[in-house]
């Protein structure tokens, strides 16, 4: 499918040993963390610098092959899953934090920097990079920007897009552009930087990213509250928001999830409770203490059975770590874990929880729910055995209804994972046909030959929008 000429071209642009075509390499880059979707690429290429990336993109336009940029492969919408004939772009050695500008609270880093490494490095300087995807020890900044990753601190601090100041990006046609900069204010022309954030690898390959940092909070208090029922926990969330407290983290975990986590990390979580809330407040010490006190009161008023404060930073770390492994720990229960991220306005969280339970019961599937209750971003997680086709069909049907429910409540089909391959079918239902057409037009202008991650977000579209004859594009079917 990939012409030999293209392989030779890639080798000329980079080096022989930077183009992988061996079976064992192709098989291992066939998928990311999205279940049930994978396809081996035709080749994998490991560029050294931005010039090589640009040359690879020009070659893709000449030879008519698709490119799929890949970070750590922890994505949950199939964004890094190759379409047949595609070439995967890797950035393993792009892991330098190029500059930490303490005067301007900004950091330049290469696309392959691991998010957790950046967080740790800036924290040593009393600065803070708030976006905090659960996979922060593994995932990369490049991937975070491509997916506009969210995480545990969305409620107070927002998501990745709120911290991208600028970037060096290679456009699909091979031009290198510098977007944004260190100034807080910048209205020179269209806001192209924000167009790139969350473009899921379809509009540009990010090589360097300029991130905004904030001063590290003086103090953090971590609280764990347990409730008899999920709805009581949901009401406590509403109570906290009503009291005008803005926790940095306000996480919800249902009974199924709590049990799975406890089986992995022996933390003595109350496995007989109906739901847990993990709450963090940060800021000035005096305010934090006051807020933590108010939180306990509110949780108790909503029927919390126990409210525990972490007494040491290590204990707080353990609790946060417990929340971060929720997705993977749920896999202990059944072999296949389908995690979604339907998101609603936070006032609709109790309603959404009730609907998810009703849908799970009706389709007879186990769905564990955890997530960022504070910002309405829930993670209904369906636990099945993909080897059972009937159960898989029921799970798909349940998710279809969950997405419909999220849209009906004014929410979105995806809060932080992206559309990728997994949710293409649902995009138009949420944003409408004209908006999808607009997105396609942007894609067609920037990437006339459909070389950059084609088939993601939406299908490449009707044939007339397609690249010249002789380069048919295929998409991996969901």
């Amino acid at each position: 499918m990939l012409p030999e000429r293209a392989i030779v071209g890639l080798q000329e642009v980079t080096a022989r040993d930077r183009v992988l075509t061996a079976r064992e390499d192709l098989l291992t880059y066939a998928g990311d963390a999205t279940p049930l979707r994978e396809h081996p690429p035709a080749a994998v290429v490991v560029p050294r610098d931005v010039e090589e990336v640009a040359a690879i993109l020009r070659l893709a336009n000449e030879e008519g092959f698709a490119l799929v940029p890949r970070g750590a492969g922890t994505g949950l919408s199939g964004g890094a899953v190759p379409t047949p004939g595609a070439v995967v772009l890797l950035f393993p050695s792009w892991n330098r934090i190029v500059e930490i500008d303490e005067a301007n609270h900004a950091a330049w880093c290469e696309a392959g920097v691991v998010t957790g490494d950046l967080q740790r490095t800036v924290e040593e300087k009393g600065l803070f990079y708030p976006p905090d995807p659960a996979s922060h020890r593994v995932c990369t900044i490049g991937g975070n920007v491509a997916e506009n990753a969210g995480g545990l601190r969305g409620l107070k601090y927002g998501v990745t897009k709120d911290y991208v100041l600028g970037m060096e990006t290679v456009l699909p046609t091979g031009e290198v552009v510098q977007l944004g900069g260190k100034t807080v204010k910048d209205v020179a022309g269209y806001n192209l930087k924000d167009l790139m954030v969350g473009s899921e690898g379809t509009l540009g390959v990010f090589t360097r990213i300029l991130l905004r940092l904030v001063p590290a909070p003086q103090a953090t208090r971590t609280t764990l509250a347990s409730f008899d029922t999920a709805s009581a926990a949901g009401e406590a969330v509403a109570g906290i928001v009503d009291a005008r407290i803005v926790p940095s983290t306000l996480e919800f975990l249902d009974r199924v999830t709590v049990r799975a986590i406890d089986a992995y990390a022996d933390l003595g979580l109350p496995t007989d409770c109906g739901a847990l809330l993990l709450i963090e407040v940060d800021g000035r010490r005096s305010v934090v203490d006051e807020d933590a006190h108010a939180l306990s009161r509110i949780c108790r008023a909503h029927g919390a059975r126990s409210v525990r404060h972490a007494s040491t930073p290590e204990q707080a770390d353990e609790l946060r770590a417990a929340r971060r492994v929720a997705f993977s720990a749920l896999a202990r229960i059944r072999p296949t874990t389908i995690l979604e991220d339907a998101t609603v306005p936070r006032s609709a969280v109790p309603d959404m929880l009730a609907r998810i339970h009703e849908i799970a019961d009706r389709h007879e599937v186990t769905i564990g729910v955890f997530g960022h209750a504070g910002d309405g971003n829930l993670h209904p997680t369906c636990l099945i055995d993909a080897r059972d086709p009937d159960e898989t069909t029921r799970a798909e049907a349940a998710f279809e209804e969950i997405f419909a429910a999220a849209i009906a409540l004014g929410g979105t089909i995806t809060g932080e994972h992206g559309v990728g391959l997994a949710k293409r079918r649902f995009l138009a239902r949420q944003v409408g046909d004209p908006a999808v057409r607009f997105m396609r037009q942007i894609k067609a202008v920037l990437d006339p030959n459909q070389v950059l991650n084609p088939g993601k977000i939406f299908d490449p579209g009707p044939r007339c929008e397609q690249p010249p004859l002789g380069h048919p594009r295929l998409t991996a079917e969901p």
Partner: protein
Amino acid sequence: MSATPTAGPATHEDRLAQCIQCGMCLPACPTFSLTPRERANPRGRIRLMRAVESGEMAEDDPAFAEAMYYCLGCRACETACPAGVEFGLLLQTARARVEATGSGERPPDAPRAWLIERVLPHPRRLRIGARLLHAYRRTLGRWERWRRWVADRWPGVARLEALAPAVPSASRRSRLPDRIEPEEVAGEGGAPPARGTVALHPGCVQAVFLPQANLDTAVVLAHNAWRVVVPKGFRCCGALPAHQGGPALARELARANIAAFERSGAARLVANSAGCGAFFEGYGELLADDPEWAERAEAFSETVRDVTEHLVHEGLRRPRRPLTLSVTYDDPCHLVHAQRVVEAPRMMLNAIPGLDLRPLSESTRCCGAAGLYGLDHPEASESLRREKVARIEETGAELVVTGNPGCIFQIRAGLRAAGSPVRVLHPVSLLRAAYELPSSLPG
């Protein structure tokens, strides 16, 4: 811990299905840090195992063999895995498949197979081999031109020789008796009545190359009022053959060890080598499909304890006099990741008054010994060894302790190569010194 909630023992396929490709294991994998390719991390290896199951990749593809053997088998990914993937068992099965097809055969393999099948399971042959090795090193082996000639002709043999640790003088005092009573090592304060009988497995390599660790273990156990027996009929635990794709030999050795333990009348098996201990704990799994042995193997595995765990949990006599020494502790992979023993060795060391126990950063990262890994992957093994040595030197400690012979030899060689004066000991040997007990048995 079972991989699946379904009834019956988990199959290879069930264990493969348990991985959800989330990547949480990636930062824990030492080989992935050396080779940033998916095929060099647990997620990629599992993908290749699946490819072999589904027929996407041929079972006898040499690339599959290479990917399975590039893994250290350190099992750090198991500790990191929230989904509970039993990677060690997956790897064992995958390597058995590789060996069954013969695709694992590479030139340097010759001494590997010979060593595992012909020497290690036979204590007498191993002892004789060690003496020959010792004699060789003092004679022909000193001759540089000869060494170069050997290295050219049989690189595998040369590497094996380089890997083998120094042979301690086989004096009578390092011989382990069959039975040691608490009163024999009463030390200060006299001997309380025996609290029970424990069996000590001396290991195969350890018995010959590190006899002092076994002797110290026996002395320390007796000093803590345990009667120690070393049953006749104990053989190599089988870990090395199993990890090199030879399950049949491993099962044969397991049955011999179970039978010998049962005859000994001991209530507990104490292991002082992390690799052996981890493998003993897996006998139940290893023989699960053997109707005659499954139950006995399960019962055997239940009795296994690492020596530090046994001492700390059953109550440890605190040494009286302080030992002013700075020490750091390195977690052997198969103690921390396979047996999940983390606190016991540290508590044991902290019980020694005056000891300055310094934290070792990345103490749970593999030192690169990993059984016979250095034979096939000398560069990777040495890179990890250098990392470990650097971390140890950062602590400024005078001594590093770790409870596995492979790690002791590897770290010792690494420190020597770096010109470091830091010494390496088994943690129990340090405790014996703190008790001020003699390093040999009376009589």
